[in-house]
C-alpha cells in the first residue's frame, strides 16, 4: 500500500511548468515576497556575502600571523579584525545559515505545508537580519569595534573607544530575527504538518530544526536583555556590571554565556539534521536508531542550557559551581556521541554513494568528532585552566563550527541545490572543492591545537617566536581553504545557466521535497499530500520505483 503511494507521489510534479522562480518577475516581487522559498533565496544571497566578509577578515588575520612581530597591521586593527570576524561569522553567518537558508526552503516542503504559519513574520525576520547587517556594516566602515565577539565588561562598557553600542545593537536586532525564525518553525511544525505526517514520520532535519528553534526561543532573549544592559551602561556611564558601584563583571559573563553556549547548539543542531538527511539519502537506508537520533537533538537542546559556565572556569566562579558545570558538560557529549555512532552504523550494509554531499558529510562526521572530543579536553576542569583562552580553544571551535557546521551546510546546499534551482552542478569540480576544503581545513586548524597546548594565547597580534612554524602552517592551510570555498561560488553559479536539468528526484531520495517538481511550484504542491509512509522508507520506495538512476 505504501509502495503505491510513493510511486504515485513521485510522478505528481510536472516538469517545466510554473514554479516559484518564474511565477512573478521584478525586484519588488522578491523584496515583498511572502513565499518561504523566495525568502530562503534572499537569505542565501545575503548570508553568502556576510561569509565572504567574515572570511576576508580571517585571511587578513592569518597573513598578519605569518610573522611573530605585529608588522602588517597595528594592534588596534588586528583587534578589530578578530572581533569583526567573530561577530560576522557567528551572528550573521553561522547562526542563521542552515535554518534561514535550508530550513526556510525545505522545512515547509518536508512538512507538506504551503508555507510557514506566519509568512509575513518570516519576511520580517529577513528584514531584521538585513537591518542588523546594515548597522553592522556601518560600524565596520566607520571604524569597527575591538572588544572580541564576547563583549566582556568592563572593557566593552568603559574602556573601549570603538563603536560598541552600534555593534551590540546590531547583535540585538539579529537576535530578534533569529527569535522570529525559531517561533515560526515551532508553530509550523506543530500546526502545519500534512495529514498523516506524525512526529515519528518526520525527517530528522525537522527534528533538528525543532530542537534548534527551542534553543533560539529560550536563549536569545537573555542575550537581548544582556546587550540592553550593556548598552545602557555604556550610554549612562554607570550601570549594572560596573565594579565602581559594586557591579560584578563575572555576572555579565554568566548572562552572556547563558545565551552563547546554547547558541553553539543553535549552530550545530541544524548541521546534524542535514547530516542525517544526507546520510540517509546517499546510503538509501533508514537512519539507524531513528528515535535515538531524533531525541538526542532534544537532549542536546535541553542539556546545552545547563553547562554555560564552562567558559568561566578561570574567570572567578566558585570552585564548587565549576564542578557542577563541568559535570554537566560531559552529559551533553552523550547525545552527540549517539548521533555520531548512529550515522556510522547507518553505513553498515548500505548502498553508499560518493556524491559530493556525502563526501562533505563524511568529512563532517570525522571533523565534528575531533572538535567534539577536544571540547571534552576543555570541559575537563584541570586541563582547561591551562588551555583556556589559548589557540587550543580556537582550534576546538573551528573544528566544530567550520569542520562541523560549515561542512554540513555545504553538504546541504549541494544536496538541495537541484531542488532549489532545478539544475545539477558539475560533479567533478564539486568533489575537488570538497577535497580542498577538507585538506585546507585540517592544515589550518590542526596546528592550532599544538599551539594552544604550547601556550599561545588567542587574540594575540604579536606572539613569541617559537610559535612561528605552526602559525605558518596554519596560514598556508587557510589559503587552500580559501580556494576550496571560492570554487563552489563559481561552479554553482555556472550551473544556474549551464547545469543539466535536475528532474524531480535526481538522487533517488525519499522525503516530501523529492515528490514535487524542481524548482517547486509557488505553493509547493499541486495538492496537499497525505503521508502514509515512514521517514526514509527506502526499501519501500526502491521496490516501488523498480530501477533507479545511477548517481
Amino acid at each position, binding site marked *: 500500500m505504501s509502495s503505491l503511494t510513493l510511486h504515485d507521489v513521485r510522478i505528481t510534479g510536472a516538469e517545466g511548468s510554473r514554479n516559484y522562480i518564474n511565477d512573478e518577475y521584478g525586484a519588488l516581487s522578491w523584496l515583498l515576497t511572502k513565499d518561504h522559498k523566495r525568502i530562503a533565496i534572499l537569505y542565501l544571497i545575503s548570508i553568502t556575502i556576510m561569509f565572504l566578509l567574515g572570511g576576508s577578515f580571517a585571511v587578513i588575520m592569518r597573513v598578519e600571523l605569518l610573522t611573530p612581530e605585529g608588522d602588517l597591521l597595528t*594592534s588596534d586593527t588586528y583587534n578589530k579584525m578578530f572581533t569583526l570576524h567573530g561577530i560576522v561569522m557567528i551572528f550573521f553567518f553561522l547562526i542563521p545559515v542552515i535554518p534561514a537558508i535550508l530550513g526556510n526552503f525545505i522545512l515547509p516542503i518536508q512538512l507538506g505545508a504551503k508555507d510557514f504559519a506566519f509568512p509575513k513574520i518570516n519576511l520580517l525576520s529577513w528584514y531584521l537580519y538585513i537591518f542588523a547587517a546594515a548597522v553592522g556594516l556601518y560600524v565596520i566602515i566607520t571604524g569597527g569595534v*575591538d*572588544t*572580541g565577539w564576547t563583549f*566582556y565588561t568592563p572593557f566593552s562598557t568603559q*574602556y573601549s573607544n570603538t563603536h560598541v553600542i552600534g555593534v551590540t545593537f546590531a547583535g540585538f536586532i539579529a537576535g530578534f530575527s533569529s527569535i522570529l525564525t525559531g517561533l515560526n518553525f515551532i508553530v509550523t511544525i506543530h500546526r502545519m504538518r500534512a495529514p498523516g505526517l506524525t512526529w515519528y514520520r518526520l525527517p530528522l532535519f525537522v527534528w533538528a530544526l525543532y530542537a534548534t528553534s527551542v534553543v533560539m526561543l529560550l536563549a536569545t532573549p537573555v542575550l537581548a536583555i544582556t546587550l540592553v544592559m550593556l548598552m545602557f551602561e555604556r550610554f549612562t556611564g554607570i550601570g549594572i556590571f560596573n*565594579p565602581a558601584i*559594586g557591579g560584578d*563583571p563575572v555576572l555579565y559573563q554568566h548572562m552572556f554565556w547563558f545565551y552563547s553556549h546554547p547558541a553553539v547548539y543553535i549552530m550545530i543542531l541544524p548541521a546534524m539534521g542535514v547530516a542525517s538527511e544526507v546520510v540517509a539519502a546517499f*546510503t*538509501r*537506508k533508514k537512519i*539507524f536508531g531513528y528515535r535515538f537520533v531524533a531525541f538526542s537533538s532534544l537532549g542536546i537542546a535541553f542539556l546545552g542550557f545547563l553547562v554555560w559556565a564552562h567558559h568561566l572556569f*578561570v574567570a*572567578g566562579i566558585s*570552585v564548587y559551581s565549576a*564542578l557542577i558545570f*563541568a559535570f554537566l558538560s560531559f552529559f551533553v*557529549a*552523550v547525545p552527540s*556521541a549517539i548521533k555520531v*555512532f*548512529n550515522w*556510522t552504523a547507518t*553505513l*553498515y550494509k548500505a*548502498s*553508499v554513494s560518493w556524491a559530493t554531499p556525502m563526501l562533505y558529510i*563524511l568529512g563532517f*562526521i570525522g571533523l565534528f*568528532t*575531533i572538535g567534539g*572530543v*577536544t571540547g571534552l*579536553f576543555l*570541559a575537563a*576542569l*584541570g*586541563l582547561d*585552566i*591551562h588551555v583556556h*583562552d589559548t589557540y587550543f580553544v580556537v582550534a576546538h571551535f573551528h573544528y566544530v563550527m567550520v569542520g562541523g557546521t560549515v561542512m554540513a551546510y555545504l553538504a546541504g546546499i549541494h544536496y538541495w541545490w537541484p531542488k532549489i534551482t532545478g539544475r545539477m552542478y558539475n560533479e567533478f569540480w564539486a568533489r575537488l572543492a570538497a577535497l580542498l576544503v577538507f585538506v585546507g581545513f585540517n592544515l589550518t586548524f590542526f596546528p592550532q591545537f*599544538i599551539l594552544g*597546548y*604550547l*601556550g599561545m*594565547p588567542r*587574540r*594575540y597580534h*604579536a606572539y*613569541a617566536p*617559537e610559535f*612561528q612554524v*605552526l602559525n605558518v602552517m596554519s596560514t598556508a592551510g587557510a589559503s587552500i581553504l580559501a580556494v576550496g570555498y571560492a570554487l563552489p561560488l563559481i561552479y554553482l553559479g555556472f550551473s544556474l545557466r549551464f547545469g543539466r536539468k535536475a528532474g524531480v528526484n535526481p538522487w533517488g531520495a525519499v522525503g516530501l521535497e523529492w515528490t514535487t517538481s524542481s524548482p517547486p511550484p509557488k505553493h509547493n504542491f499541486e495538492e496537499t499530500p497525505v503521508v502514509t509512509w515512514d521517514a526514509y522508507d*527506502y*526499501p519501500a520506495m*526502491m521496490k516501488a520505483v523498480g*530501477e533507479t538512476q*545511477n*548517481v
Partner: protein
Amino acid sequence: MMLSDFPLFPEAASTMAHQVDALYAFLTVICGTVSILVFILIIFLAIKYRRRPDNQLAQDQEPPALLEAAWIIIPFIIFMVMFVWGAWVYFRLSRVPDNAIDVYATGRQWMWKFQHPTGQREINTLHVPVGRPVRITMASEDVIHSLYFPAFRTKADVLPNRYRTIWFEATKTGRFHIFCAEYCGTMHSGMIGWVEVMKDTDYQRWLAGGSEGSMASQGEKLFQKYACNTCHTNDATGRGPVLAGLYNTTVALTDNSMVKADDNYIRESILTPQSKVVRGFAPVMPTFQGQVNEEDLLKLLAYVKSLSAPKPATVAVESQQSMQTSAGSPLAPGAGQAPQPTTTGKGNQP
C-alpha cells in the same frame, strides 16, 4: 635540526605541570583513539558498501539494538573518568598549600606589577624561589586581565572588583613566559613578561637588595594616612573592631550570618564597609572606594594580615570576641542607633 624552533610540547616547570600533562596525555590517547576509529570506520564502510550495480538498494539489516545501549553507557563511563580526573587536578590547582609564600600582583593596561611582602616591586618580571609554593594575590586596576604561566600550567583571571589567588611551585630554575590571557585592549599581546625562578639562596639575596620597607610597614603608614587608626585602635575602645588577629578568623555579622575574614572580606570591608557589618558595631565606617588604589589596598591588606602575628594577637582575639558578645547582645535588636533607611526617602511615610 630546528627542534628548538618547532616545539610540540611546552616546558614543564612546576609541580602541577606533570599532573596536567598526564591528564592531557590520557585524554589525547582516549579521544585520539576514538576519533581515529570513527575515521577508519566511516572510510572503511563507505568503501566496502559503496554503491555498485548489485547493491542499489541498501540491505535492510539493522545491527543489534544492544549496540545502542553500549554506545551510550561506555562513553558515559569514560566521560565520568575524565570528569573526576579533571576535577581532581582542578582542585589541586585551586587549593593553595598552607606554607605558600605571598606575592601580590596588580594588572593594568598593559603591564603586570608585582610586589613582594618585603617591599620589592617589579614590572613584567617576577622573581620567585624554586621548590617553594608561591601564592599570588591579585586584582586589576581597570579591565579584566588573566595572569598565565604556560610552563606552570596555570592561569587565573584578574578582576577589577575582588582578589583572586593563583599558586604554583616551580621545579626548575630559569626564565618562563608570563602572558596576559584575557583580551584587555590594544596592547593585550604586549602584556607579557618573564618569571625568573631562582635558587632559594639567590632569591633571599635578591629580596635583601634595596627596598622601601616591607609591604606591611608601608601599609601601616597608609593606615595612619587614611586615619584608619582613629577608629581601629589596639584595644576595644575604638569605634571600630580591633583588627589584630582578624585575618582568617570567622566574623559574625549583624544579619546573624558568619563570614571568613579572608582577603576579599578585608577588601570589601574597606571599599564597601556597609555590605557586611560586624555584629555589635554601627555601620559608621566610610567607604574608601575611589580613594585607595589597588596597590595601596594590597599594602593595607598586607598590614592587616601582618597583625595576625600570634603572640599579642591571641589575646586580642579573645578580648575582641568577649567584647563582641557582651556589647553585642544588648545592642542587637533594633537598637535604633543605626541610621534607618526609611527616614531618608520622601513620600514613604504612611
